[in-house]
């Protein structure tokens, strides 16, 4: 029996102020978006071997193109238990009917609930807001009008292929929009949807327009990074549903069947650095969550003693899942991660941030991946007992040992020893530096008895979920449990090096761009590929979404948001459409059944409504985006973010107060970059400069960002540098630079002949 599912389960669209230009969201980690035609059909390379990657992020007027979230239906059956994309013309079955797929109807419902939701205040509300927690626009009594609710839209793949989330309500729905004269920018649409020639859905978000309804002297103004009364933006999210129309030869009639469950579209701000991964991606947060809360891979994390014969836990059977959660769960200590697939991409990442900020250069490149560096993959990837085929006559020279600080130790073991493991101290050093569970507020472990790391800051040294207030303090970011687990295995020598095993080619493997670049093979890889380009922390509130995404209550199953199906599904059941003998061109969207406005509250038991994911984020988004460069974290006391020495005239405390300027998420919000300024002898000329220069880190700067966000440059991998995928970074070597900054003559990276370089052939 076949089952039909929409993938990705969560799709990421991104705003742009170009009302015509758009491209398709990347579907692989750190991938460039895909170029498409005006109907959303992906452009293919001349030899049709793959997609054409985007070279221009802006249209000819210099406006940022929108990123479309693309959804497609996958079929799961005996033939392909892991799913394959469904195509028009394929045989389909369901609801007791079978036939040939002649059309796909798509229904999407986007909304923006930011302005009626609770004020964002760090981690407050993560486990439910207290009744006294203030709402945004608390003075407004008609709460419903604060929700931007254009109503649902439905299109098909044949004769009705576009719809807009505008004020019209599509003629059948009484839409709710803010006043038309918002300043500086009014909001008339949350975006649009369309189908490409293959029946896939594209969701385009808003135009990045934000404005305040307040009038008078000094308005509009911004006075907070996340909460600004009177303000609206055109970010949104909501469910995506699909209905298959089949022609049944058996009975000579059209029959309908809905896919198994809705997917979810999330609209976010542009990804200005598409090819650099955040230290923790949303994919990594969710994978860890699903392992621990949904028994996603019981061979990796499961009941003690069950790893020889891993269990299958039906995730929607609440009793079975609760029983599993209540048992003695642990990580499989026999699990061996792969170095280049699992370990290295984590360790590789921080060094990339040197291209986005001054800070790493100022710290003398602590993540050096060259031969002398702490992060040399040849050394830290060597498994115990491995004898290199072309042995370096000199044994490994230097190792750093965290327990001895920066002291050097020489290897003592003989290299023919089976347990010969010269780089164990290097691995252990890196692992020891990692911040563990419970150390979220520790800058370094100097004040702990038995500290394993002497006087060195714990890593990652990035802001945590709450470096701001004294409630549920979470100063610094830490890796997920899963990441820490596999790094522990690696540190202990429990890992596999794919090069040693001849699984990958050591000459051609892109060690220094270590992400899979082949298109997703199935629906799950598509889910994960899309999410890998979204930010997984810190959540204060975050990039695309905040901490709500790590709440197990919002999922129906892994990678699928639990939807309120009275809002997500077609208003008329598929069986009713069968009874009505409806042609697929008729898209029945009667509005009489919508008898309640979108809710002001959450109802996780029923499911999420349109707007329920993005409502936690900052309004307008530009304020938080602008300010999330660095944060000065007070590290005087682990438990306190703010202290008040002045209140007690405490001169000693004032003197001893310690602060640390900490980066937020440079891959989502760069600080500095090399900027392309021109070409000399066919080679790019760049200048290291502030990425958003002219826009201050102030509330006035936030307001400027509302106007100028689209003028910023996009930072890409330098297409003129040969072999950068297989050679380590040598520090500020210009392997990334910013293009298309407004006012720079729309400098785009390569000339057309060099497109092969910007679209490197990753087939190895």
């Amino acid at each position, binding site marked *: *029996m076949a*089952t039909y599912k929409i993938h990705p389960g969560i799709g990421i669209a991104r705003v742009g102020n170009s009302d015509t230009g758009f491209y398709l969201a990347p579907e692989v980690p750190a991938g460039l978006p895909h170029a498409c035609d005006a109907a959303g059909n992906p452009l293919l390379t001349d030899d049709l071997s793959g997609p054409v990657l985007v070279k221009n992020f802006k249209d000819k007027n210099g406006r940022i193109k929108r990123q479309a979230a693309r959804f497609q239906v996958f079929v799961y059956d005996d033939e392909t238990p892991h799913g394959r994309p469904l195509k028009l013309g394929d045989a389909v*079955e*369901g*609801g*007791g*009917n079978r036939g040939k797929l002649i059309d796909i109807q798509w229904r999407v419902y986007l909304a923006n609930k930011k302005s009626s939701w609770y004020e964002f205040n760090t981690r407050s509300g993560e486990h439910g807001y207290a009744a006294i927690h203030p709402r945004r626009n608390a003075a407004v009594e008609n709460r419903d009008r604060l929700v931007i609710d254009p109503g649902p839209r439905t299109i098909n793949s044949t004769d009705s292929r576009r719809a807009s989330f505008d004020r019209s309500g599509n003629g059948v729905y009484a839409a709710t929009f803010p006043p038309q004269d918002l300043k500086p920018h009014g909001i008339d649409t949350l975006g649009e949807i369309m189908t490409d020639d293959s029946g896939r859905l594209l969701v385009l978000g808003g135009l990045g327009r934000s404005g305040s309804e307040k009038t008078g002297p000094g308005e509009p103004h911004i006075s907070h990074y996340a909460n600004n009364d009177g303000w609206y933006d055109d970010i949104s999210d909501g469910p995506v549903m699909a209905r298959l129309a089949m022609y*049944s030869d*058996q*009975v*000579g*009639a059209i029959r309908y069947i*809905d896919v*198994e*469950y809705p997917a979810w579209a999330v609209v976010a701000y542009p990804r200005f650095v598409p090819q650099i991964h955040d230290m923790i991606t949303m994919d990594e947060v969710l994978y860890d969550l699903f392992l621990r809360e949904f028994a996603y*891979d019981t*061979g990796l994390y499961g009941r003690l003693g069950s790893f020889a*014969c891993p269990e299958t836990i039906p995730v929607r059977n609440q009793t079975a899942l609760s029983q599993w959660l209540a048992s003695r769960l642990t990580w499989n200590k*026999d*699990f*061996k991660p792969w170095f280049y697939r699992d370990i290295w991409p984590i360790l590789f990442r921080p060094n990339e941030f040197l291209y986005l900020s001054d800070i790493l250069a100022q710290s003398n490149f602590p993540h050096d991946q060259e031969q002398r560096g702490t992060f040399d993959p040849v050394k830290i990837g060597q498994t115990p*007992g*491995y004898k290199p085929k072309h042995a370096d006559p000199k044994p490994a020279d230097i190792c750093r040992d965290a327990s001895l600080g920066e002291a050097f130790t020489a290897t003592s073991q003989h290299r023919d020893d089976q347990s010969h493991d010269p780089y164990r101290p290097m691995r252990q050093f890196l692992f020891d530096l990692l911040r563990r569970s419970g150390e979220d507020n520790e800058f370094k472990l100097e004040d702990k008895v038995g500290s394993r790391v002497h006087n060195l800051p714990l890593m990652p040294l990035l802001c945590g979920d709450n470096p701001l207030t004294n409630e549920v303090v979470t100063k610094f970011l830490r890796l997920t449990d899963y990441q820490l687990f596999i790094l522990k295995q690696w540190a202990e020598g429990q890992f*596999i090096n794919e090069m*040693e*095993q*001849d*699984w990958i080619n050591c000459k051609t493997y892109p060690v220094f761009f270590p992400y899979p670049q082949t298109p997703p093979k199935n629906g799950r890889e598509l889910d994960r590929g899309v999410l890998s380009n979204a930010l997984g922390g810190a959540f204060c509130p975050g990039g695309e979404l905040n901490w709500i995404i790590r709440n197990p209550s919002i999922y129906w199953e892994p990678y699928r948001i639990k939807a309120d*199906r*009275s809002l997500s*599904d077609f*208003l*008329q*059941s*598929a*069986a*009713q459409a*069968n*009874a*009505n*003998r409806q042609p697929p061109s008729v898209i029945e969207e009667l509005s*009489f*059944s919508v*008898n309640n406005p979108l809710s002001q509250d959450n109802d996780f038991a029923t499911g999420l409504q349109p707007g329920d994911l993005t409502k936690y984020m900052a309004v307008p988004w530009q304020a938080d985006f602008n300010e999330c460069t660095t944060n000065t974290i007070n590290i005087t006391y682990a438990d306190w973010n703010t202290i008040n020495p002045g209140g007690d005239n405490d001169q000693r405390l004032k003197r001893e107060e310690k602060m640390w300027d900490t980066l937020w998420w440079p891959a989502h919000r760069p600080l500095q970059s090399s900027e392309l300024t021109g070409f000399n002898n066919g080679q790019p000329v760049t200048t290291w400069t502030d990425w958003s220069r002219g826009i201050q880190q102030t509330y006035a700067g936030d307001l400027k960002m509302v106007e100028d966000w689209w003028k910023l440059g996009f930072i890409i991998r330098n297409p003129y540098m040969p072999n950068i995928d297989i050679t380590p970074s040598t520090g500020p070597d210009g392997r990334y630079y910013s293009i298309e900054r407004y006012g720079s003559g729309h400098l785009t990276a390569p000339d057309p002949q060099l497109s092969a370089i910007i679209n490197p052939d990753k087939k190895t």
Partner: protein
Amino acid sequence: MPTRKTPITRYGRVRKILNEAAADSTADYGGIGRFWDHGVKRLKEAAIHGVRLIAPEPEQTKTCCGHTTTTAPSGCSRGAASMLVHGLKGEAPFDGSRFPRLPWGGKAVSPEDIEFISNWIDDGCPEDDHSHTIEPGIQRRETLPVRLSVHEIAELDLAAKGVRAPSRPGELRQRGNLDCMDEEELKRLGDAFRYLYSLNDWPEDIRSYNNQALIHQNHCQHGWERFLAWHRAYLYEFEQDLQDYDSDIMVPYWDWVMPQYRPDCAQDGWIIPKSFQAFLTPEQAEKLIAGLNPSPSAAQKQAFRQLAGQKQLFTSQSVFFRYVYNTIGYRHVTPQADDANRQCMIDALLASNPFWYPLRFPAEYGGKTINEAIHYHYPSANDIQQILSLNNFRDFGGGSIYDASFGFLDQNPHNTMHIWTGGMNPYYGDGKSYEESCTSACPPVQNNTGERRNSMVRAGGRRFHSRSDMYSQPQYGDMFSNLTASYDPVFWPIHVNVDRLWWEWQRLNPSATPVELDAILSPWNYTVRDTLDAARFGYEYVRSSHFIPVGLNAPIGRIISKPIPVNELTQGFRKAEIRLHWVPQLIRSCFIRVFLNQPGADAKTPLQGNPHFAGYLSIFGHGACYGGPGHCDAPPPRARDYDHRTRNHNTPRNHRIDVTGCARKLLADGAGKLQITLIVIGADYEEDVDLLKLEGVSLNFLD
């Protein structure tokens, strides 16, 4: 002298297969290199990153029951359990998640070669044997009976036909599969229907069949979420009405998708259950012969008698009359409603079978199939599986008042089965004869007949179940329309099956409900919520059930039933279960072992490897009574009036043992009957003949 070619050993071939597949790969498998090249001994112990490649040799171990058993991981063969075989097939953990497919860096091994390697492992990884020397089969050691601990016990008979297990307070009763019912059960059900028909003579008696059917005509709910809830209550009320006449009656279900209905070409299958088809009893055949004018010829009489004697079945009156006219050759009959001979024949058919109904023309659509004529198709098992896989109530059972949408179960198959059984009368209108074919005379079918089914049948002015109504020639069968559907008794098994499918679906989706749970289901006072739990109405669904009375009088050490015939229709069950009914507290703990088709089984009969061992149950002993006389007596089946105390812990209880695997295998191997042997085993692993009391044993087949 020619040299004999030395055949390669099987191990040699294993190496050859693996080396050819590995080609020039330099993979070193976590340091052990080409593990297959270093002799069988090392291969058997080889492990890649802690994953052992060859499953350990099955060990002969003692189980807790003291029996020798062979443990193979998860019941599969050693080869299939070996990670080498998993790895060559690319199965977890060699599916790319933990490790790539074996051999690393080379090409995949063909399924035939993997099978060869797996068989070699099954045979214990012999080092030097050759393919042709394999001796299949393992010698079995006969176990000799040590002693007979109990004297011979007579085989216990099944309960009288049609008698169900006595129902104790709180115990669910079984609605069974219509096609698995025997003649006696059908007769009792038919008698109850006839009784309700007979009450039609008192038009104001609510119990009458017509008044029960009128409830549907006036109140039925279709096309939205009340459909399932309303009909569950309706079926219950009707069942109670039948039970007022015969308390053993449970309404059966018609599982339309069983193979005999050939769902993919249903017009060539049974069409409707045989028990609902037309036939003549010998007695009615004689009456008919006597009543016809002119009298049939001797040969025609003989043909009528033969038809009755063979219980020849006809799906509808039109098929019957064409048989009489064209095959028997009695031609003094026309389709006219007032034709006396036709009336005589309809009378005989009605008298012969209480479930037959003349205004029913199943599968007849003017010479077309239902697919062609109505654009609906007869439901298949796959269709039902698809519908059962729907994950929300609206899609399965219909939408709420704000979303008055059909659910799939309601729209099709339910609607289809109405149309299927109602059908179109080929003799609608005047002036036709029962010539062989009538297709040319049939009116064309409108394209939207399926959607308009409820407006296709005339209900006004009719006197249902009156003779004149039964003789009439309407355009459509009564099942076609909701207004008239339940006047046809086939309505009930169809709707019981719809209810059964909801009951099944509820188990898969325990929290999926209609939106308006407080809505009243007129004309009763049930709310939708009241109908959610079928157990409240006291029934469950089983395909068929066989009860063997034992009696509580004396303890019994061994129970051997007479062989219970299991017909082909019953054999597609999902689950087979033996239930022990009304077992009082036992003083001592015991095991109860079940053997099927091994009447000589005793405490020493092997369990492992014995295809007749079906399962066991353990009952925890209560211990000796420390009270005075009567302290541990079982309480009366029903509490005294005003005894509101909680259920007595000595209340006898039922136990069930799943025997699906054993029963299915024995039946598949050709056993047409199942004979149950229950052995009571005490803590000393000897038979305990003086312990177990029970009211009876039943064998149940579940869908």
